């Protein structure tokens, strides 16, 4: 029996350079980055991608005070996605709706805040907040979203390092195919810029970007790249079975074509191009396609000196020959690394290409690293292409988790 077809019917997002898909896409095509400097506890001014959505659009002040930034971003994205999908939050079937949100990490922000708080009271733990546990449980972002929307179906997060955004979509598609839910809100979120630990960790790894001009700081594939710009963000989609979407006349952005999740099993932090290539190949095969059928490859490359080269090695192994219509881009030059949101946001940035047949560029590539010189790489200027029928989105994470998700143009 064929598996039900799963389609994307709504997108809600907040990125450092746009709080909805139209603005985000417009800035990706116009070369507008969204990186700034923020004060990071103990560390001073650092480069970061900050979102500018209005939390009070969908939350009461008290919800913002009690909840977390990840929860707030999730609520904003979920509400925006439902609205974009033409679904009324008040009338969706609450116990048949699932919330599946990818997170790189959760709890560091609140734990650091509480330790800082009690440091002002001689580390007396009686000043530790009673909100600490609900704020730091791993399911926080999904739980806050279920509370805000009154959704009573399954609501949980998926921890998958920086592959998590793709995992949210993949898991949702699986749950829809299993018939566990009829509507899924899924994708990824990140509140990472509010924890100094992630900045300090990358700095200790010599993997934190520096640049005089924040807009030029995140530069995947450029010879002078020097690390990651940490960003916050979120992107949640509404996914439905095709028959449900058609029966209500929903707008369809694209169809989940195929996917793969695998593991390097080789290192805590170093990527493994062999396993990455394997992940991409398996996703292409899962979609019933050949590499030449993929028209956009959105890379994960984070602008670390080694990681970019290794992903390019993986891409070259799959798409290096016989793929004249495959174009390759990267979104992190605009928005930095949105961690758990990265996969979901970067996919969203490319979805409009099904309609406008334009591949957004990788920006800030003044001198292309010869080791990253892939055929089909779209640099600095958008590129109009003859056809876009399949978009492949890579997201990889620490501890060697790889995810590849393919979205196809919807053809009835």
């Amino acid at each position, binding site marked *: 029996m064929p598996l039900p077809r799963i389609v994307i019917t709504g997108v809600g997002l907040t990125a450092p350079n746009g709080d909805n898909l139209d603005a985000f896409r417009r800035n990706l095509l116009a070369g507008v980055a969204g990186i700034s400097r923020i004060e990071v506890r103990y560390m001073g001014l650092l480069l970061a991608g900050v979102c500018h959505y209005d939390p009070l659009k969908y939350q*009461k*002040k*008290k919800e913002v*005070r*009690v909840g977390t930034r990840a929860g707030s971003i999730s609520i904003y994205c979920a509400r925006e996605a439902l609205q974009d999908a033409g679904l009324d939050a008040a009338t969706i079937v609450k116990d048949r709706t699932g919330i599946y949100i990818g997170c790189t990490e959760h709890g560091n922000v609140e734990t650091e805040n509480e330790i800082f708080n009690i440091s002002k*009271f001689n580390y007396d733990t*009686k*000043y530790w*907040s*009673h*909100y600490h546990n609900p704020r730091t449980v791993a399911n926080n972002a999904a739980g806050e979203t279920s509370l805000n929307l009154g959704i009573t179906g399954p609501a949980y997060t998926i921890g998958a390092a920086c592959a998590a955004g793709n995992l949210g979509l993949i898991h949702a598609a699986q749950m829809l195919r299993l018939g566990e839910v009829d509507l899924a809100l899924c994708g990824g979120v990140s509140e990472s810029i509010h924890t100094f630990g992630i900045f300090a960790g990358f700095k200790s790894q010599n993997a934190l970007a520096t640049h005089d001009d924040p807009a030029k700081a995140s530069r995947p594939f450029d010879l002078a790249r020097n690390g990651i710009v940490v960003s916050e963000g979120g992107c949640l989609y509404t996914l439905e079975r095709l028959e449900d979407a058609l029966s209500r006349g929903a707008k369809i952005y694209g169809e989940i074509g195929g996917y793969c999740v695998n593991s390097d099993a080789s290192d805590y932090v170093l990527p493994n191009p062999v396993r990455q290539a394997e992940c991409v190949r398996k996703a292409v095969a899962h979609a019933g396609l050949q590499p030449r059928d993929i028209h956009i490859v959105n890379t994960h490359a984070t602008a670390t000196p080694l990681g970019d080269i290794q992903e390019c090695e993986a891409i070259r192994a799959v798409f290096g020959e016989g793929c004249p219509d495959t174009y390759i881009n990267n979104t992190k030059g605009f928005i930095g690394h949105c961690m758990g949101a990265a996969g979901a946001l970067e996919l969203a940035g490319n979805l409009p290409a099904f309609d406008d047949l334009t591949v957004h560029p990788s920006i800030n590539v003044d001198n292309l690293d010869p080791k990253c010189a892939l055929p089909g790489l779209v640099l600095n200027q958008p590129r109009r292409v003859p056809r876009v029928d399949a978009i492949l989105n890579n997201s990889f994470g620490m501890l060697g988790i790889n995810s590849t998700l393919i979205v196809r143009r919807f053809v009835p």
Partner: protein
Amino acid sequence: MTKDECKQVVLDIIADIAPDEDLTQVKPDVRLRDQLELDSMDFLDIVMELRKRHGIEVPEAEYQKLASLDSCAEYLTPKFNAVSAKQ
């Protein structure tokens, strides 16, 4: 500190922990939970803020004495004055 001043201190705390609430019409003799959207976690917030901002401890067995503004003033004013006397 007078009882009225004490009520204002409590209202200032509530304004921070329940920022959506209109506190201009709070009736001092009516239970706070009956006129404002406050749950048990919010009452823990009141207890925490009394501790942090004013050095006042409210034992769990005495939480019910924070039920209304009047009962807060009755219970907390001597505590505030005791803290002031120590300083």
